[in-house]
């Protein structure tokens, strides 16, 4: 494990060094990412220009959800965002090479890159977080601070696990990468808003089965000391770490199952 981390650290620092070689390119990419991410928040602000609340949530509360989700998603993108290239690995046969090397395939795919330009998205999440804090009156205590930090980490883990789980579709159909987007980018989009806005079947599918509601919604209810409009039990507010662990177990199992099923095009 320690050994794997050391290898990962070396590969990732090499990837980062190479990305920083073209300094202007990198800065422009980061700025671009910041602005692209801001589009979604522009939508939030335009919506609140028309209504004072969405359900029971104020603009500051939605911004808080949005910020938690955006920061988690950016962290997940750093680590696993390049999984969207997995179809290329399969199509070109690079994945076959990975099967021959003495490391796990998931480890090799994940350590192949580190998308530092997603820094733009992280900074955008931080900016919205600062905005949310400036309009909300949160009664901070040690528990709420700890919960906020833990939520960003757990959210990143949940997003990463979902990413690994759904990208496995590539092992069955190489062209299917965009299906995964419905759950990864779709999941991120969903978590930017309170989940009580969605209909029950959509909540069950993307909120609980794919556990997106644990990325921001439930922990945010605790930090904001808010009543759940869905009236669900309050232990759910503290369940994100457990959900993150379960999600990782499922993602790992799915990956192993998919790789066992995988048949190279090279016959």
């Amino acid at each position, binding site marked *: 494990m320690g050994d794997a981390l050391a290898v990962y650290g070396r590969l990732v620092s090499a990837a980062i060094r190479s990305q920083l070689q073209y300094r*202007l390119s990198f800065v422009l990419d980061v700025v671009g990412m910041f602005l692209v991410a801001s589009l979604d928040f522009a939508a939030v602000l335009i919506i609140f220009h028309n209504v004072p609340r969405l359900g029971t949530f104020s603009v500051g509360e939605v911004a808080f959800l949005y910020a938690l989700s955006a920061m988690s998603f950016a962290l997940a993108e750093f680590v696993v965002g390049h999984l969207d290239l997995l179809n290329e690995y399969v199509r070109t046969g690079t994945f076959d090479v990975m099967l021959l090397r003495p490391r796990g395939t998931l480890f090799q795919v994940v350590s192949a890159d580190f998308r530092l330009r997603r820094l733009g998205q992280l900074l955008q999440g931080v900016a919205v977080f600062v905005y949310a804090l400036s309009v909300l009156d949160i009664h901070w205590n040690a528990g709420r601070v700890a919960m906020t930090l833990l939520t960003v980490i757990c959210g990143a883990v949940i997003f990463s696990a979902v990413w690994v789980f759904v990208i496995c579709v590539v092992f069955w159909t190489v062209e299917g990468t965009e299906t995964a*987007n419905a759950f990864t980018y779709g999941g991120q989009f969903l978590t930017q808003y309170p989940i009580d806005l969605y209909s029950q079947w959509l909540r069950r599918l993307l909120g609980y089965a794919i556990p997106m509601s644990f990325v921001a919604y439930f922990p945010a209810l605790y930090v904001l000391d808010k009543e759940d409009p869905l009236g669900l039990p309050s232990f759910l507010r503290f369940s994100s770490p457990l959900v993150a662990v379960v999600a990782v177990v499922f993602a790992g199992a799915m990956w192993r199952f998919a790789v066992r099923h995988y048949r190279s095009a090279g016959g």
Partner: protein
Amino acid sequence: MRLDWELARRGYRRYAAYPAATVAGLFTNTVFGFLRGYILLALYRHRDVVGGYDSADALTYVWLTQGLIATIYIWGWQELALRIRSGDVAIDLARPVDPLRAGLAFDFGRAVYHALFRGVPPILFGALVFDLTAPSNPLVWLAFALSVAFAIGVSFSWRFLYNTSAFWLLHYRGATVMAMILANLFSGFIVPVAFFPGWLKAIAYATPFPAMVQMPIDMFVGKTSGIDVVEALALQVFWLVALLALCRGALAAGVRKLVIQGG
């Protein structure tokens, strides 16, 4: 004309060759349609009408935009920029057909495929779950079809224009990202332009972007009607011609620059 037709057929067939990619894209567009639909529906818990849209109009707007994603290629495209960067554009210029015209014909073929297989299905899925509105007057359908065709042309010429930045900029990706952001926001793709605060609405309507999304949709949901429809179509044609002229100028200037470098 015969050549345009053949090029359009190539555009159609190139995208028709990957049915699994179409299904995957369709799936994603549909999931997002549900998410966006329920979010906008939440606005109507507080009000009956927002920016002139009632809840059925807003839902129809959502599903039409989901159908237009692939049809007008709102996420943008960098094919020409990549060809300029690699030098392949020299091959395009050597061909006995104008690259702008060939590109437009090819893109219309692509758009017909995407309209049929990624445009119509999400709207049908949306109509199964939500109460959508549809025009009863066949003339409105005709105007809508025409307006979508113009929207495709405006979108293509905008994409072509920002791709030509690669003649001058090494980092063309920055320009394409900015161009994509402007188109997404001001076209009314993310939120209807009618929901914007006044000052932002004024900016949006001074740009060609509403001609890509908002104008055809406003015809469909009946926010633009009567003589205003003709005015809107004329405005779309104006933007199409203006952008094509800019493309023409940018291409000519770019080619001069390319020759200098190549010489």
